[in-house]
């Protein structure tokens, strides 16, 4: 990490020295890569004894796998990942969420805090609503089961969604949450980071705008060192958040199709500037857990 990539095949001549200080080796689909006695991992395939890359990215050799860290590609779900989904369809017993993976993920009512009867699911979530969920199970057919039961999970009311590359999410969070903490502190916003590259931002419109700018910088320059400092500099340069005026919730349209009828009274006092920043490492959710305001 942090190294410039050397000439493309530099890794080939090097001994079996273990990773860390290893210069990154750029590979393209079809490039032969040395396996160095390791097993083929993500982005590789074998033909006989030879090993090839199947995606574009940096090759890494780290016990026990040779794998390619891809430059692009859809989100690949992992169990326990917290992700942001958008309701695409409401069925009799489950919702279908677009999570920017290769398939939609079903969210069954058993994974929600609600107990709707058949056909009553649209009383809780409708098409276009954003939710914070966790990946629960992955089966061999590629089905992605998600749940809303868990700390901080639930419906995301208000706010807006920003999508970046899932590969850049670790940079958005930063070491021990340093980056996201810096961003929320200096913009007066509340942020939920989904491992699938979707980031929910809530707060004053101007703060949301600055978070958006930060995310753009992170996405474009994520590989360079000193990123947190640069983001901090950028935010201080663009001035402290002015949180005096009452926030206009309609100024930043929410990424969904209708005004939320559960919003009233459920949000914390947004225009209180002295509010403690949310915990940086954990996605925040403003709506109540469990038997929330939905149980009306």
């Amino acid at each position: 990490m942090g190294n410039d990539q050397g000439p493309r095949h530099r890794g080939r001549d090097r001994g079996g020295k273990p990773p860390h200080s290893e210069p990154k080796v750029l590979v393209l689909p079809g490039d032969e890569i040395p396996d160095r006695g390791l097993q083929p991992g993500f982005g590789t395939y074998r033909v006989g004894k030879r090993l090839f890359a199947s995606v574009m990215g940096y090759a890494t050799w780290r016990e026990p796998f040779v794998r390619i860290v891809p430059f692009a590609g859809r989100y690949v779900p992992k169990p326990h990942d917290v992700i942001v989904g958008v309701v695409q369809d409401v069925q009799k017993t489950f919702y279908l969420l677009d999570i920017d993976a290769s398939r939609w993920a079903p969210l069954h009512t058993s994974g929600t805090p609600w107990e709707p009867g058949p056909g009553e699911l649209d009383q809780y979530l409708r098409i276009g609503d954003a939710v914070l969920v966790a990946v629960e199970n992955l089966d061999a057919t590629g089905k992605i089961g998600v749940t809303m039961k868990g700390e901080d999970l639930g419906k995301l009311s208000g706010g807006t969604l920003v999508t970046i590359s899932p590969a850049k999410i670790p940079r958005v969070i930063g070491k021990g949450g340093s980056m996201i903490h810096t961003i929320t502190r200096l913009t007066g916003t509340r942020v939920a980071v989904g491992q699938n590259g979707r980031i929910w931002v809530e707060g004053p419109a101007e703060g949301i705008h600055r978070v958006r700018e930060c995310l753009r910088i992170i996405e474009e320059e994520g590989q360079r060192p000193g990123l947190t400092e640069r983001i901090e500099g950028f935010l201080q340069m663009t001035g402290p958040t002015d949180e005096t005026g009452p926030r206009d919730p309609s100024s930043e349209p929410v990424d969904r199709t209708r005004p939320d009828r559960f919003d009233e009274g459920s949000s914390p006092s947004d225009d209180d500037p002295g509010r403690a920043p949310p915990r940086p490492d954990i996605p925040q959710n403003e709506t109540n857990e469990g038997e929330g305001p939905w149980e009306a």
Partner: protein
Amino acid sequence: MGSVGAKEIPELLNAEGRRIDGRRLDELRPISMKVGALTRADGSAFVEWGENKVMAAVYGPREVHPRHLMQTSKAIIQCRYNMAAFSVDERKRPGQDRRSQEISKVITEAFESVVFTEEFPKTSIDIYIEVLQANAGTRCAGLIAASLALADAGIPMADLVASVAVGKVAGRIALDLKKEEDNFGEADMPLALVPQSGRLVLIQMEGHMTRDELREALDLGTKGCRDIYERMRQALRARYDVPAGAPAQGVMA
């Protein structure tokens, strides 16, 4: 064809062995590729090849629409090759016709043999190829653009697919025909090659060649594909600001 058909048959090969645009028989037209030309697609590429201009966009793997096309064991590849109404001299009637359906089908099949579709069951990988300007060889240009777009989208595949047409012009085998050569030449044969394994994944032919000519054409086409392949790799690396290494080998004008 249009206005060209009204003219005399041009001299396709002059006494010095130069073609209508000054190229030698084994020379490619100038080609440039830009990977990541569109922001909203998962992967995209724009290819200018001679007077061809082709844009390709890739989406997916994503949900299959319509649903009945879904396959439980692998992803399906859906490709649409389309020529813009303004891409040729005489306005083309917009929309899919039999020619574009055929081209979509052969390109789809070319990619089915390299993309690891089993990794994404019940999904669809959608490829859109838009020909903005046409001057013979658009299916090859489209295939190259789509191949780059697939790589840009991070879709796993065995190799990039390189493609070029070979043909017979004024009795000689020539690489990468342009429009006049295609119209007035004796044969046109588009090829697509998986360079790393040496497999041909697309081959079509219009016109006539002898057995020896076919052999010569395949050799020339394979060599052309490998040149194109090198250019494709440079274009992909350039997307991530990686030095492209040695400059192109004499194919760029």
